[in-house]
């Protein structure tokens, strides 16, 4: 049996790595991927808390349902976000976020 604590520590480490990737990468697609990494880390702690509850608790499965909602929102976000990325890349001829510094071209 794995203690719940271990899952939470792993979740914290993955979230921190997601933040590092978000701050340090320059490619707009990679930055978007690091957001997905952070969402995944949070999902892990949701499921860990869900399984740590006693078996007949009325809210035991709520955590897993939140994960489903997070995944749906992430899918919607990916569709819109990648549309925005394609548009930006077309207009500026670059994927580097440091080149996207003008409000109007």
């Amino acid at each position, binding site marked *: 049996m794995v203690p719940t604590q271990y899952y939470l520590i792993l979740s914290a480490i993955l979230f921190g790595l997601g933040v590092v990737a978000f701050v340090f990468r320059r490619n707009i697609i*990679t930055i978007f991927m690091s957001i997905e*990494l952070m969402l995944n880390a949070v999902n892990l702690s949701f499921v860990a808390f*869900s*399984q740590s509850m006693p078996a007949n608790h009325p809210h035991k*499965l709520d955590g897993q349902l939140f994960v*489903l909602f997070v995944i749906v929102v992430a899918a919607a976000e990916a569709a*819109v976000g990648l*549309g925005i990325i394609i548009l930006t890349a077309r207009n500026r001829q670059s*994927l580097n976020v440091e080149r996207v510094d003008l409000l109007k071209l």
Partner: protein
Amino acid sequence: MSAPLVIFFILAALAVIGAVSLILQKHPIHSALSLIVVMVALAGLYLLMGSEFVAAVQIIVYGGAIMVLFVFVIMLLNAGEEERTDFSKLAKFGGLPLALALTGLLAATMTKHGASIPNPETAGVLAPTRDLSKLLFTTFVYPFELTSFLILVAIIGALVLAQREKS
């Protein structure tokens, strides 16, 4: 060490290696493949925790649909190696220590206070998918319907963004 603990450490190491590789790879397609490794490892962890439905959704939606979308866009835009631009001085010297401090703080908090969180009495009991769906269509029916509206908005948004301007 018991078998679940060994599996946990293997999958956790796989996830962390994938995440570090996401940061270090220069080419976006390599980063995307690293992220897929992280997601598959997390799906394994969900299975280990006994939530088989979430594991299946993780593989199908995250590892399948969303990552295919990412790879598709990378190939569509012909994204090459990342161009290096100068960090500001503050980001160069302050960024990594601050990010590591955040990670350390989160992990330390979990280590210190996480011990009071109860552990499951029986490991690996599968969460019944039937109960999950019952909950989804009774207690959480309004959020569920709102989700379908959100997806509709996302579809329209993506279509509007993707269409070329008439010139």
